[in-house]
């Protein structure tokens, strides 16, 4: 029972109001998004995405990894010179030469990234904790000497020993880091533990925190929000959640969840979301699923009678925001789950007036047809169906016979 009390307490604490001024978005579509296996953006695409992000209102863009050199460096240099409103950040390993490459690109901010979990330190870096702390200190110091905004990234923070993570944060802070990026690299925590860990870092060390979450267990957004509730001030997002493995916290989902669930309006121009998502989907050669939260093409398409009737009466019965808020369109389609209301509505929009009785019969024809075609009907098929239904006229008599036959059959089987 103590556990329950504990979480109730956390939940209540977590329910407090958040000031929109304290929440900033650092979008990493161009860095972690592009790092996704198989994804490569052309430089022109990178520049276009940077402009879209700036235009929609993000606070910072993580433009890429300058140390990769070549084309990557050219793109970052170009983005840094566009005169955007947002800050432009270059990603670096905790290595001085990486930071030099960032400086050469003219960015105003850098991330210095190094693992803080023992499993990474031992198996990936093959170094010691002391070595990690030393690298953080040296590199943050070095980056600060160029007057840059510095984010110290604790990679795999969620699997790190808390004591060590606090040490990491303290050293970063003392070296002058402007924030600590808390990386849930494997997406392995749930919102409750994320909340507690982030709150501890803020309470004990007093450094700005940025949330970097992954969606391996479907919790990227929830964890980012948990971090904000605990006092984090930045969230690292990507458009469409593009990112390694199952991806990152999706930019559009986070902004809308903050607005409609948490009551925190960041003032972004959300009507551009669909367009941005489509662009990134094409540039990354990844189709936007029709059911993608916030921007999926089918989100405002209704077939099921119960839901559609509600929405036709008042969209608020099933929608927290409007289709045009995110650049989508509402539509009613007819299929296996259609009924009277949707049929009348649909036929009206196609230019036919029909009675409730007719609609009832037509809906049944539509349902059968949809089952045999294994999909919803196209508008032209609905018109065809309606016309041939009108032509027949004696459908009612047939239906009665079918019903009779069915009830006889079920009588027989129930006697068995």
């Amino acid at each position, binding site marked *: 029972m103590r556990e329950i009390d504990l979480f109730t307490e956390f939940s209540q604490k977590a329910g407090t109001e958040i000031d929109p001024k304290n929440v900033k978005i650092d979008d990493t579509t161009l860095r972690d998004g592009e790092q996704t296996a198989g994804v490569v953006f052309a430089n022109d695409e990178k520049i276009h995405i940077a402009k879209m992000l700036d235009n929609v209102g993000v606070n910072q863009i993580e433009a890429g990894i300058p140390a990769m050199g*070549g084309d990557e460096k050219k793109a970052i240099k170009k983005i840094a010179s566009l005169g955007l409103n947002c800050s432009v950040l270059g990603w670096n390993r905790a290595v001085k030469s990486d930071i030099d490459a960032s400086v050469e690109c003219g960015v105003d901010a850098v991330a210095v990234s190094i693992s803080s979990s023992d499993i990474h330190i031992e198996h990936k870096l093959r170094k010691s904790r002391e070595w990690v702390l030393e690298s953080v200190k040296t590199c943050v110091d070095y980056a600060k000497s160029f007057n840059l905004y510095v984010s110290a990234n604790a990679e795999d923070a969620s699997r790190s020993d808390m004591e060590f993570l606090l040490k990491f944060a303290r050293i970063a802070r003392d070296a002058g880091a402007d924030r600590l990026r808390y990386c849930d690299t494997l997406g392995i925590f*749930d919102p409750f533990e994320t909340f507690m860990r982030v709150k501890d870092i803020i309470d004990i060390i007093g450094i700005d925190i940025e949330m970097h979450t992954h969606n391996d267990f*479907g919790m990227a*957004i929830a964890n980012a929000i948990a971090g904000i509730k605990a006092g984090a001030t930045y969230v690292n997002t990507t458009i469409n959640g593009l990112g390694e493995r199952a991806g990152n916290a999706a930019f559009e989902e986070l902004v809308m969840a903050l607005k409609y669930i948490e009551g925190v309006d960041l003032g972004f121009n959300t009507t551009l979301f669909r367009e941005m998502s489509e662009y990134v989907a094409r540039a990354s050669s990844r189709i936007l699923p029709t059911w993608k939260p916030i921007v999926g093409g089918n989100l405002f398409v209704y077939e099921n009678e119960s839901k559609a009737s509600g929405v036709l009466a008042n969209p608020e019965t099933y929608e927290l925001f409007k289709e045009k808020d995110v650049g989508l369109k509402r539509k009613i389609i007819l299929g296996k789950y259609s009924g009277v209301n949707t049929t009348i509505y649909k036929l009206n929009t196609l230019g036919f007036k029909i009675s409730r009785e007719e609609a009832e019969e037509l809906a049944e024809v539509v349902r059968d047809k949809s089952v045999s075609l294994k999909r919803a009907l196209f508008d032209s098929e609905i018109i065809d169906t309606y016309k041939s239904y009108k032509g027949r006229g004696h459908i009612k008599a047939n239906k009665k016979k079918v019903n009779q036959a069915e009830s006889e059959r079920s009588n027989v089987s129930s006697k068995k």
Partner: protein
Amino acid sequence: MSVAKSKRYVNIIDTTLRNGEQTAGVVFSKHEKIRIAKMLDEIGIPEIEVGTPSLGSVEREIIKEIVEDKFNCRIFVYCEAEPENIKYAARCGAKNVVINISTSDIHLKEKYKKNRTWVINKLRETIRTARQNNLNFIVSAEDATRSDLEFLLKIVSLAKKKGAYRFRICDTVSKFDPFRTFLYINTISSAIDFPLEVYNHNDFGMATANGMAAIRAGASSLVVSVGGLGEGTGNAAMEEIVMALRYLESIELGIKTSKFREIAEYVARASSRAVPIWKAIVGTNVFAHESGIHADGVIKNPRNYEVFDPGEVGLARQLVVGKHSGSHTILHKFKEFGIELTDKQANEILALARAMSIDLKRSLFDKELMYIYNEYKKRKISKREEQNPED
């Protein structure tokens, strides 16, 4: 990893065949419905929701066939609260039904155009019919998260008094985050001692997190679907919930997870919706590593970037060579092809591979890597010949 390590049992009820099929544009054939039911049963899903009897005779025939099959799982059918719908369910031979009714004022006013008393009466009437037909029933409150809490508690009490099997709380419009879900479920379960089930939508990408929060708050069951298939953004994905319970909460349902990829693919084909390659748990890209840092980490020890082994969900690990690759990946990749490279060779091939990847705007196929290698070798040889013409 979790603070609250509970050893308790959690139920899941899969609604791929009901709410999954209810998705705009999705229709399963009879054969597919039966196959999906079998697959879910075989991997050990304890309960499944298979359809809506009131839809028509075709649907009823399918339900009847599934009900008559000898499955281990408990089979539910879905009815909007209406005595007539219960009769349809009984006619299919169903033993368990979900009785659904909206409880929020906005739904009552705008959808039903009725008042709260009407809801209570409709529910009583429907339950009576269910009991007369000896049906086991779950009462489901649609839009529960926007309902007046006092009224909702009244409905829960009614369900309990009338002998319901469980009570379902639907977050129909995805109104909650995990913290609010926790408080809400905790409040209800503290007020009335009755098994609760939670149904989530994914409108803001939090269906799984909300489901897990509900379990923490004391709910005993979650409604899930394969791949999260469902209306709008869909529901909590079965595979995510099962793996999150296993790895985040140490709650083991004993489900055969190695079949997850296969089931996800089958449902994807039957619903004409491809599994996105980045789909959590079952996407083919979830165990694909390209960036130098990640791939290098995985080669050294998979636990660096993987919580569980890909085989556990029926997937395979892949190392992808592209713009972000490092030389370790090249060494490893060629070792797989049976070619041992020196560090210097790996670095030179890496530069060629990166350039090609940027040019092609994608990662490289294994074949393309071999072409690069062959050309590279040829060039080396001709260079050597140039340098030592007498050889």
